[in-house]
């Protein structure tokens, strides 16, 4: 059963997790899921989007992470497939950008790149006086 309406939102969230390397709970924690989902809807031809989610559904139904990874590499990463959506989704989550534009102030501050780089977005989520003298408190890897 789908957790969200429309069901493509689930597909988007789950494929985003595989594309970004972040767990779905981390993606949901950014509060950006619907915004990014709607950004795709607003910018990409509906037929292409529908075909993309059909492909996502098939890939996510595969057995095991390796199979999913291989299928993503072959189906979603090539620039010529689905208007380059695979890469665009990664950049959206990591940088908060669609093409070269910042989607919103929140998209910038919620970019995954800062987490991956073990820091915070410059100008937001400030860690406090003297924090930079120590290793970051949150270490991911």
């Amino acid at each position, binding site marked *: 059963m789908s957790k969200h309406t429309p069901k493509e939102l689930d597909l988007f969230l789950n494929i985003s997790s595989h594309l970004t390397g972040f767990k779905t709970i981390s993606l949901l924690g950014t509060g950006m899921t619907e915004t990014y989902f709607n950004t795709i809807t607003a910018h990409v031809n509906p037929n292409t989007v529908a075909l993309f989610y059909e492909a996502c559904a098939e890939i996510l139904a595969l057995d095991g992470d390796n199979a999913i990874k291989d299928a993503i590499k072959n189906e979603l990463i090539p620039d010529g497939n689905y208007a380059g959506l695979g890469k665009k989704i*990664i950049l959206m989550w990591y940088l908060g950008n669609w093409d070269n534009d910042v989607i919103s102030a929140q998209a910038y501050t919620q970019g995954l790149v800062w987490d991956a*780089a073990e820091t915070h977005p410059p100008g937001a989520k400030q*860690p406090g006086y003297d924090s930079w003298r120590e290793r970051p408190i949150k270490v991911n890897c």
Partner: protein
Amino acid sequence: MQQQTHEYDVVIVGSGIGGSIVAKTLTQAGKKVLLLEAGLEAGIDFQKKEAFNNYMGYLDKFYQTAAKVPNSPYPNLKDAPSPDVIDIEAIEPCKPATNGYLVQAGPIPFGSDAWRGPGGTTMHWLGSTPRMLPNDFKMKSLYDVGVDWPFDYDALKPYYEMAEFEIGVAGNVDEQKGPDVSKDKNYGKDYHFPMKKIPQSYLDEKVIEKFPKGFKVHFNGKAHDLEFVSTPQGRNSIPNPEYPYSDVVWNEDKHKLELQSDKRWNTFTKGYEAVPDQQTTKYTPVGAVWDDHQGHRCEGNASCVPICPVQAKYNALKTLRKSDPKLITTQTQAVASKVLTDESSGDVIGIEYKKYEDPNSSVFETHIAKGKVYVLAANAIENAKILLASGIANSSDQVGRNLMDHMVMLTWGLLPEKGFPYRGPGSTTNIPTMRDGDFRKEHAACISPIDNWGWGWPKFSPGSDVENAVAAGMFGRELKYHINDVVPRQLLLHFECEQTPEPNNRVTIDPNYLDNLGNYRPVIHYSASDYMKKAFAEYKKVSDQIFEAAGVEDFTEYTTSHPDYAEYEGKVYNFWGAGHIVGTHRMGTDKEESVVNENGQTWDHQNLYLVGCGNMPTLGTSNPTLTMSALAFKTSEAILNQLKD
């Protein structure tokens, strides 16, 4: 044209740090001031709600702008345009690059920007405040390069102390060392900064620990001790209880400005008050302009350039807000276009300014501001431009000439382990080793800050790291681990080379290039001399030695597609502007060779003073804001004395 009926003691052009220091000092001493500011009214509103909302608007614009360059949070107005690094492009031979506000006549583009608006470029400055060195004031006598200043270091020392109070410098005097630095000589044995030093970063520590004491780097044929010092900076930290001063006050009997400990200006009651005896620290950090309880400590936003969200970093609005509101009148959206003089006496009789309502419309009204004394504090490029447009103050033919900047050669690499950059203020440690020595006879000196923000400046990291990895087909956990491996190991060093005064590096005007209001756009002529290029070559070798000893893998790449490149002995070097726009109306002892005297008073017009980095005869290796602030106090004192007569 509307004549101002009201006459002020002093008319000031520009609300940056220079103009704000003069406005504050003069109004607190009882003088009536008119301040003209080219930028928008909203940026200068000191009512709590309005000031907060306006500043949060800047922050939001910063978040939403893809290229987070220094001017990105701030409005760029057609009626008062700002030079912007985003407009820099390569210049074709004999064809000026006209992208943006500056007309870049070349041969290479001037690499720095500024902001024309309330608070000026301190809104996006980094905040580093090292003093110049004593030897910087006598480059001609010691090294036969450039010119000497009209006074020596000791003459500026009391004003340096005032500037350090005003900016609120955090630093450790005992840790200041390097060539031509000793605590007694440079600071005095009992001197302290107002606040304790901003902690050096974890990254700094990871770099410094790789070099045993006595480690030497070789350049210009000699071995030099590699040293690291904590950088003094205008950024709030813990007030130092040993700092004795509470304010800078005009002493009318002694004809002097003085740092003293008994009273201080209260911004809220708008008057002087006694400092309570029981107060353990005489110095109180100055908070955000909308709420003095915010911004008393740096919170580690790591976005000082372009914007400190809590205003823990100093900006000129903090000084301007201390002006006595009963005595200051501010005209915003008022672009000074011409200084009017009396032909027989040479005295300035007014400043013509264009007042606009809509910043993008070419509709304006012309007014004339009248005072006894006039101060141009509109930044080095604008001051020169206004003087040239007015055809005044130029009997020396030096107006606009000797434009200087620190030419910043960057080097970057990956540390063997994580240093965790992109945290804390932009830089907290510098290498002073190359700041002074006999080598200055042959090539430029430099200061070398360790950058806390990874490869952000030259490579637009970490965004570009993600884009490159994704373009190469990385995704999922492989991508995440790659970013996590690479970005936290990024190291960036600056070699900020002291450009020498060259008469042909200059600002000119040309009636073919006008802005939306019909004011001149500055035409910039700029080049790198062999004295600079040799410095790049020597310091690249220093960088190589540092990287090798620290196990840093070098990723530095210089190309001829970078607009500011130089070739020297068969190799290409790239450099970037430091935002240190200096030297277009230099001071001196000889009216034939300088525009202003030691107090910033123009030789040609007794009631016209120039304030700002344009006054500096040479640049030194210090970030210039502290020095120009010291000079602004010196000028304020001279104006107060002139107004007494």
